[in-house]
C-alpha cells in the first residue's frame, strides 16, 4: 500500500513539471498543454486525498476539474485560432504589441 504522501509528492512533481513546461515552451498551444498538466497534477492529488480520507467529494471534484479544463480548452483553442488567423503564428513571444 503506497502512502498518500507519495501521491502527493508525485502530483507536486507533476505540477512543477507543468510549470516548468509553461516556461520553456514557446507557443500558445504547448504552454496551454503545460497548464493541462498542472491541472491533472491537481487531479491526481485530489484522488489521492479522496482515497486516503475516503471521501467521495475528492473524486467528484476531479470530474469538475476535467470539465472546466475542457471548457477552457474550447475557448483557448478558439482564441489561438484567432491569433493564428491574424498573425500566421502562435509563438507566444510575438504577442507584444501591448506593453510598456
Amino acid at each position, binding site marked *: 500500500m503506497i502512502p498518500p504522501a507519495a501521491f502527493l509528492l508525485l502530483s507536486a512533481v507533476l505540477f512543477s513539471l507543468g*510549470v516548468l513546461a*509553461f*516556461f520553456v515552451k514557446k507557443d500558445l498551444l504547448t*504552454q496551454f498543454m503545460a497548464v493541462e498538466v498542472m491541472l491533472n497534477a491537481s487531479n491526481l492529488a485530489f484522488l489521492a486525498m479522496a482515497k486516503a480520507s475516503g471521501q467521495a467529494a475528492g473524486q467528484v471534484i476531479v470530474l469538475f476539474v476535467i470539465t472546466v479544463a475542457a471548457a477552457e480548452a474550447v475557448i483557448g483553442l478558439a482564441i489561438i485560432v484567432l491569433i493564428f488567423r491574424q498573425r500566421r503564428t502562435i509563438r*507566444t*513571444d510575438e*504577442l*507584444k*504589441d*501591448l*506593453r*510598456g
Partner: protein
Amino acid sequence: MVRYFWLIPLLPGASALLLLLLGPRLSRRWISWQACLTVFLSFALSLAGFVHLVRAGHGSSGLAKTLLPWIASGSFSAAISFAFDELAAVMALVVTGVGLLIHVYSVGYMAADRAYSRYFAYLNLFTFFMLVLVLASDIVLMFVGWEGVGLCSYLLIGFWFERPAASKAGMKAFIVNRIGDAAFIVGVLFLLVNVGSSSFAAINAAPAAGVLGPGLVTLVAILLFVGATGKSAQIPLYVWLPDAMEGPTPVSALIHAATMVTAGVYMVCRLSGLFAASQAASSVVAWVGGLTAVFAATIALVQHDIKRVLAYSTISQIGYMFLGCGVGAYAAGMFHLVTHAFFKSLLFLAAGSVIHALGGEQDMRRMGGLKKALPTTFPVFLVGALAIAGVPFLSGFFSKDAILTSAFAGGHYVLYALGLSGAVLTALYMFRLIYMTFYGQTRATHPAGTAPHVHESPPVMTVPLVVLAVFSALAGFAGLPVLLGEKANWIGGFLEAVLEPAAHHLALSTEVGLILAATAAALAGIAMAFVFYRKRPDLPERTARSFPGIYRLLVGKYYVDEAYDAVVVRPLVRGAETVYARFDLGVIDGALDGSAAAAASAGKGLNVLQSGLVRDYALAFLLGAILFLGVLLL
C-alpha cells in the same frame, strides 16, 4: 482759541488731503492760498498757544488733548493724543513759522513747475506729519510723524522723479532712515515692554522710578539715538542728506535744514529725562555730535555745489546740537536748533534765489561776482553767513557759544576743542562760499556762450528772505549768556519746565574767555577764507597740491558712500542673487523637481519590466507566489 491747539497739525493735513484728491482740478492761485493759509493758521494757533504758556508761566502743565484711542491690544496701548508744552511750543513755532515763509517762497520758486499742486500737497503733508511729531504726547504717535516726515522727504527729494538722480536720492534717504528707524522701533519696544506705557511722561519718569535698570536705560537711549542719527544725518547715517539736495531748494530749506533733520535733536530733548539718566548714552550722543560737526565741516570745505556745501554745513550744525544735548545742555541744543532753523533756511533760500537767478546753476565754480546782480539776496546771504559763522551778536554766535560753554563747563575739554575747531571751519567754508559766489569775476558760462541774464528774484521770494534775515540776526537775544544776568537766557528758562536743566555754571572770567575764544575762532575762519579765496585765489590749488592725499580724501567725502556700497549694499545684493540661483532654484526646487523626476523614472523602469511577454508575467507571478508561500511557511 488755545483749546483748539490740536488743529495745528490737522489744518495742513486737511489741506494736503484736499490737494492730493483734487489738486489738478484747482487753480494755482487757489492752491497757493490754501496751502499758505492753512500753515498760517497753524502758525497763529501755535503763537497763541505759545503766548498762553508764557503767560501761564512755570508749573503750567501745558495743554493736552486725546483725539481717539488708537491701538489697544492686551497690555499694549497707544492713543492719538497731542500735548502742547514749552518744548512743543518752541518747535511748533519754528515749524509753522519757517514753514510758512518757505510756503510763500515756494509760490514764487515753483511757479513754473508742472506738478504745482502735487508740490504743495506734499509740502502741506510734511507740515502735518512734522507737527504730529512735535505735538505727539506718546512715542508711538511720534513715530507716526517720524516716519511720515521721512515719507514726505522721500516724496519731495524725488519730486522731479523723471531725474534718475532725484528718485535715487529719495530712495536712499528713505532706506537709510529706515535703518535708523529699525533701531528706533527696537528701542520703543524695550520701553513699551519694560515701562509698560508709551507716554513721554511715563518714559521720562521711568529711570527715576527704577522701572528701567541703568543698563537698560543706556541701551534704549542709544537705540533711540541711532534712530536720531538716521533722521538727523549724523555719523554713521548722514550719507543721505547731501544727495537729498536733488530736491527743490525750498524743500532743502524746510525739510533738510530747518525742521525734519532736527527732529532727532527734538526727540532727544523730548526724552531728556531718559538720556540724562545715562551718562554713557549721553557721552555717545555728545561724541557723535562733536565728531560729526568737524567731520562734515571738513567735507564742506571742498564742495563745489553750493547746496551741498550747505548740506554738509547742516550736518555739522546738527552735530553741535547733539553735542549740546550730550553734555546735558538740552536747552542750548534746542536754542541752536531754533537759530539754525532761521539762518540755515535763510541760506538755503538765498542760495535758491541765486540758483534761480542763474537758471538752475548750482556749481560755485561757474558763479562769482553776483554781489551787484542780486542786491537783496547778497546782503541777506551775508547775514546768514555771519550768523552761522558765529560772529558776535548774531543768533548763531549766542547759540553756539551756549553749547560750547556748557561743554567746557561739563569738563568735556576735548569736545570743546572739537567744537571750537568746527567753528573755525564753519566760518571758513561759509565765507569761501560767499567769496566764490558773490565776489570776483563772474565765471558763469552759458550754453549760448553769452553771459546769462542774471535777475533778482520776485518779491514773493525775497520778502521771506528778509524776514528770515531779521530773525537770524536777532533771534540770539532770546538766549543771552548767563553772565548778563540770571534771566538773560530767557529761552533756557522757558524750556526748563520740560528739559533737564544744564548742571554746571562757570566763573564769569572763564565765560568771558570762552566767548572771546569763540569770537576769535569765527574771525579766524573768515580771515582765512578772505586770504584763500579773495586775496590769493591761487592758494587753494597750491595747498591742494601740497597735501594731495588729504585733498583727495576730502573731495571724495572720505569715500564713505563707496565704502557702504562695497561693504553693505553690493555684497547683500550679490549674495541674495547667488542664494536665489543656487539655493532657491538650485537646492529647493531642485529637490522638488528631482523627486518628480525620480517618480517618473521609477515609472519608466516599471514600464520596461512590463515587456509584453507572457513569460515575464508568468515569471513575476511565480516569484511572487514563491515569496508569498515562503512568508506563510516561515
